[in-house]
């Protein structure tokens, strides 16, 4: 197998439009291109499908309304009615991740969400935003979030650092989960694709497996966008209501 056909070759970043501002490399890469395509496709689909605004929705309008209601219900179920303010953020996150994941499944496309820096940037924004929200909402009392109640004071020096670290883990797990799923799935698809060529006639076996795996990857694309979204909702809930048992 040539070096250019390695299963990891698909994740390579190429500069399409080299730009450098103040010593910083801010080139427009294939990753940026596919992010722009994801945003464009999502905006186009949502605006086009809602442009008629018919009372009895057509096919496209149903999809848009279904997505809207799904996320609206998810948000109010997991974070309460006050969280409705944050709907635009949550909906944009869901649609962007979903489109990035799905576009990545098109052959020869680039999967932006298979790069940890992309997912970590989103998770980091969510984490910082939610922490600021908690402090704005509760002031210094938000620090009480890290003190488990009903625990003897002797144990607190041990438990508060644990709570603090388990809070700081959040952006890591949020980003690693999405990135690892995408990376693993796409690598596996490429590896199996290589087997098809190598095995000749018996390549029909990995070929059949790829068909099944592709269906699974479609599910994973949805599931991971959903998981990212619901965890964002749960974090917003924690910031708004702290631990109200």
């Amino acid at each position, binding site marked *: 197998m040539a070096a250019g056909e390695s299963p990891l070759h698909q994740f390579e970043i190429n500069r399409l439009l080299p730009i450098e501002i103040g010593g910083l490399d801010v080139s427009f890469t294939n990753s940026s291109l596919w992010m722009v395509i994801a945003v464009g496709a999502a905006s186009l689909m949502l605006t086009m499908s809602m442009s008629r605004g018919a009372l009895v929705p057509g096919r496209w309008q149903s999809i848009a309304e279904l997505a809207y209601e799904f996320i609206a219900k998810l948000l109010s179920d*997991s974070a309460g009615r006050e969280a409705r303010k944050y709907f635009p953020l949550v909906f944009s996150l869901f649609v962007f991740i979903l489109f990035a994941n799905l576009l990545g499944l098109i052959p020869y496309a680039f999967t932006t969400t298979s790069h940890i820096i992309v997912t970590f940037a989103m998770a980091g924004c969510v984490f910082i935003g939610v922490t600021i929200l908690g402090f704005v909402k509760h002031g210094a009392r938000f620090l009480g979030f890290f003190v488990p109640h009903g625990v003897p004071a002797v144990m607190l020096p041990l438990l508060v*650092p*644990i*709570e*603090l*670290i*388990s809070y*700081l*883990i959040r952006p*890591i*797990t949020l980003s*690693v*989960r999405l990135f*690892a*799923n995408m990376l693993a799935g796409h690598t596996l698809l490429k590896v199996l694709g290589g087997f098809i060529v190598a095995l000749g006639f018996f390549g029909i076996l990995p070929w059949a497996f790829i068909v099944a795996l592709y269906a*699974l990857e479609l*599910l*994973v694309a949805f*599931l991971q966008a*959903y*998981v990212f979204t*619901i965890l964002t909702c749960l974090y917003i809930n924690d910031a708004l209501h702290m631990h109200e048992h």
Partner: protein
Amino acid sequence: MASSDRPPSFDDLDARLKKARGGDRPAPPSPHVAAALGWRLAIEMAAGMAVGGIIGWFLDSWLGSRPWLTLVLVLFGVAAGVRNAYRLTQKRSAGPERPS
């Protein structure tokens, strides 16, 4: 509201449907959802250790106490990871179904 002119048999349809489907017991998770949960538990525990180690490393370089804070915070990180993983499984068995 329109609830008064609804046929009465409609109201308990939900209850009867639920009973026929085996009560409130949630359906067993599909293999994909179970695999996603497994992934999540593993990532949770590994990330705990990593975050504890990284914080410890930076604190050590700052305070010049090289191995000690890293060691202690890695242990705290492991504990935090296990705690998050534990909390995750508790939430699943107790509360309403929340897929991974």
